[in-house]
């Protein structure tokens, strides 16, 4: 190579490097690159601003030691578990969320994307792009708080209306005539529908906003379900429906799942079965543990789901043509909600139905729930 060519090549190389620098610095989110020893080779302005360091404090320094990472439970993430190390070791890109400790010691929640830098199929470093998600987390927290508060505050006045209407109707405040009783029944019916609507809307809002809380714990499925049987029996009694719980427990009843969500799913499916079954009918809830999962069956002797409606029953606001005229109080949200709840705990739902004979809903719950 002659001198002129060498100079041209050097100029090209400098130009490429400057272009890479400009590109790196123009990334709107924090970006850091490391070499194969984990030392910081490049860092852009947003990253410096978020982490509170000077460029000179970071370049050439070990990223893992200088910027501490913690999970959302406040536990420091060990070197080998750090996403950047994992990306380097596996050669795979990683997307995750964690907390960084800034130079000042404050916590910075970030959404990060890491890609290994490969040369001749060998990782020679990694690039990490991260963005501050503290505002998103605050909004999520406020949403959850609002939902919980709204749930309580909307229900308190409703409880008073319902309790006093019942007391009036049942003669606690003196005898009433038939017309007065019937008017109070109308008020009670409306408060029940309002209650149902509040429950459903709040749950759907939790699912759709992603603020549904899944808390995993080892549970005995029979024990969990037995806690809601008294309330379900009250609903069945009100319609003179024979409701029973059957447990075929040859396999273990142990399950790692969110008990509250399971209760919500079963409550919805059993109340639905009661709602769409004529008075004096039957509803049976069976717990059938299998080796790989826990199967729940909710069988009713109700009106059934018409063939034409079968692929739409889990759709929002859908109501079967055969039940709209019989049961006018549905919202078409119950099964949509149930499906969302089941998906939140990695379960499955399906059904078999014969019109005018009844429906059986099957729910399969995984024995071990891994949400990672």
């Amino acid at each position: 190579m002659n001198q002129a060519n060498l100079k041209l090549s050097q100029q090209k190389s400098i130009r490429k490097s400057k272009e890479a620098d400009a590109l790196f610095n123009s990334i709107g989110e924090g970006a850091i690159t490391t070499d194969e020893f984990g030392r910081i080779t490049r860092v852009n302005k947003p990253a410096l601003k978020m982490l509170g360091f000077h460029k000179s404090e970071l370049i050439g320094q070990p990223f893992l030691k200088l910027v501490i990472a913690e999970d959302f439970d406040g536990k420091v993430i060990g070197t080998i578990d750090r996403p950047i190390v994992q990306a380097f070791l596996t050669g795979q890109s990683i997307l995750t969320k964690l907390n960084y400790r800034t130079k000042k010691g404050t916590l910075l929640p970030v959404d990060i994307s890491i890609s290994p830098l490969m040369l001749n199929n060998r990782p020679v470093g990694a690039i990490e792009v991260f963005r501050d998600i503290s505002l998103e987390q605050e909004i999520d927290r406020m949403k959850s708080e609002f939902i919980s508060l709204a749930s309580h505050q909307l229900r308190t006045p409703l409880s008073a209306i319902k309790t006093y209407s019942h007391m009036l109707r049942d003669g606690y405040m003196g005898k009433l005539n038939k017309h007065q009783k019937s008017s109070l029944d109308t008020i009670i019916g409306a408060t029940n529908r309002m209650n149902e609507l509040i429950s459903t809307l709040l749950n759907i809002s939790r699912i759709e906003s992603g603020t549904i809380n899944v808390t995993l714990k080892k549970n005995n499925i029979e024990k969990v379900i037995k806690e809601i049987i008294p309330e379900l029996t009250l609903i069945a009694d009100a319609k003179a429906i024979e409701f029973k719980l059957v447990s075929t427990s040859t396999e273990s009843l142990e399950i790692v799942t969110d008990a509250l969500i399971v209760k919500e799913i079963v409550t919805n499916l059993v109340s639905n079965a009661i709602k769409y079954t004529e008075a004096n009918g039957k509803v049976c809830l069976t717990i059938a543990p299998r080796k790989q999962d826990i199967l729940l069956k909710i069988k009713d002797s109700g009106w059934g789901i018409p063939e034409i409606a079968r692929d739409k029953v889990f759709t929002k606001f859908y109501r079967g043509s055969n039940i709209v005229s019989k049961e006018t109080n549905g919202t078409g949200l119950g099964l949509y909600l149930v499906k969302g709840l089941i998906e939140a705990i990695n379960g499955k739902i399906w059904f078999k139905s014969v019109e005018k004979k009844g429906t059986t809903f099957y729910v399969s719950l995984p024995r071990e729930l891994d949400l990672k």
Partner: protein
Amino acid sequence: MAKILVVEDDRDLNKAYCIILRHEGHDVVAAFDGKEALVKLSEIKPDLVLLDLLMPVMGGLEFLKAWADHKKNDAKILLFTNMENSPEISEAYKLGASRCIIKSWTAPHNLAKVVNDTLKSDSFKKIKSRPKVQKV
């Protein structure tokens, strides 16, 4: 007849529950927060506490923690709340609550039924005559 302590901060609801349970023949005392309930718990030694969770001054969970610490008596705890599906309910079970009923879903006769059933369950022997349970 059993001694029941109704702990509910909403005065209208508290009054209603007292009327319903007195109508069932029980001896009922009202408290409007957990702190007041702890004092009355020592005084009247109830057989059952009908307990709301979200209350000012001292909520239901704090009351249960204090109750567990002192073990002032063997009252049964019946949660009566509108906090459907909340982790607080699981926590309350751990702290000794026997049962949980959602207020806005429960009609007076059902409240009376659940109270009477809870009183009757396990080793409870004090009910002299079981009150008549009305079907919906």
